[in-house]
């Protein structure tokens, strides 16, 4: 019931934030209508970071405690993170074409490290499919989930460490958060989109977590032979 309310709330919030971003704020003087893509691009990027941070923390939790809930959280974070990273890249490309004059530039450190981030977590999801044994799958996934997280700060600080096409961070220090270098309406649209997408992110993660828990329990039940038909279908673990 609570997740249903959350889902409906997320849908309404995303619809409202989208309407405000597309029609409620004026176009930027220099970037024109393309500026509106920034609201969804930045929100998706921040939530992608959060997703992979959750995966890394849950991976450590799994390696320390061997708790199946940790593996479910890690999987949920990674899968939703892949979705939001893909959204980030797509929105960035659609913004880059009218403003930069190009969809993509491999020489740019932010773009390239973000593409690498996407590849790392797609790899994480693929590696999880290599074994049917839940504990082994969780351990392999946890190692990849922790190693891949090294790319998160590299992506974020790439615009500070190296020069490229991508602009520097808009909100970096407490001073710029309190006194943002953008008009109040633009900041409001960004924060509204971030709030709405956060609700959607939470709904997706909670539901993916619940699905992962049910899958784990079904696999464990089948392995213990509670369901004879399923037990025959699931291969025994390799020694």
């Amino acid at each position, binding site marked *: 019931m609570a997740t249903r309310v959350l889902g409906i709330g997320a849908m309404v919030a995303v619809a409202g934030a989208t309407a405000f971003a597309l029609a409620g704020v004026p176009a930027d003087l220099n970037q024109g209508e393309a500026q*509106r893509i920034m609201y969804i691009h930045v929100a998706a990027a921040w939530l992608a970071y959060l997703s992979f941070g959750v995966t890394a923390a849950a991976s450590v939790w799994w390696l320390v405690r061997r708790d199946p809930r940790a593996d479910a959280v890690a999987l949920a974070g990674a899968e939703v993170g892949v979705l939001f990273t893909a959204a980030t890249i797509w929105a960035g490309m659609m913004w880059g074409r009218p403003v930069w004059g190009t969809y993509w530039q491999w020489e740019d450190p932010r773009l390239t490290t973000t593409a690498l981030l996407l590849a790392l977590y797609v790899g994480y999801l693929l590696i999880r499919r290599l074994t049917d044994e839940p504990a082994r799958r969780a351990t392999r996934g946890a190692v990849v989930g922790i190693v891949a997280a090294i790319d998160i700060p590299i992506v974020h600080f790439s615009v500070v460490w190296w020069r490229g096409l991508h602009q520097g961070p808009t909100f970096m220090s407490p001073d710029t958060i309190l006194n943002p270098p953008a008009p109040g309406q633009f900041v409001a649209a960004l924060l509204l989109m971030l709030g709405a997408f956060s609700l959607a992110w939470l709904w997706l993660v909670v539901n993916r977590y619940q699905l992962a828990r049910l899958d784990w329990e079904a696999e464990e039940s089948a392995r213990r032979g509670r369901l004879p038909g399923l037990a025959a279908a699931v291969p025994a673990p390799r020694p």
Partner: protein
Amino acid sequence: MIGLAAIGDLAFVAAAYAVILGGTGLYALTLARRLRGARHAATTPASDQPRPSDPPTDPRA
């Protein structure tokens, strides 16, 4: 002409949004359907669940 150009630019932006929101919505729908199926399987008694050795059933029967 300026108005038409702005409408075209806004349509480009709206298309960018539509792909993201549509993709996220599709993922959410798939997730909800899979979760409903998993919950149904978890609450169905083992004896009622089909086994791989079961013969296929005729949907017209």
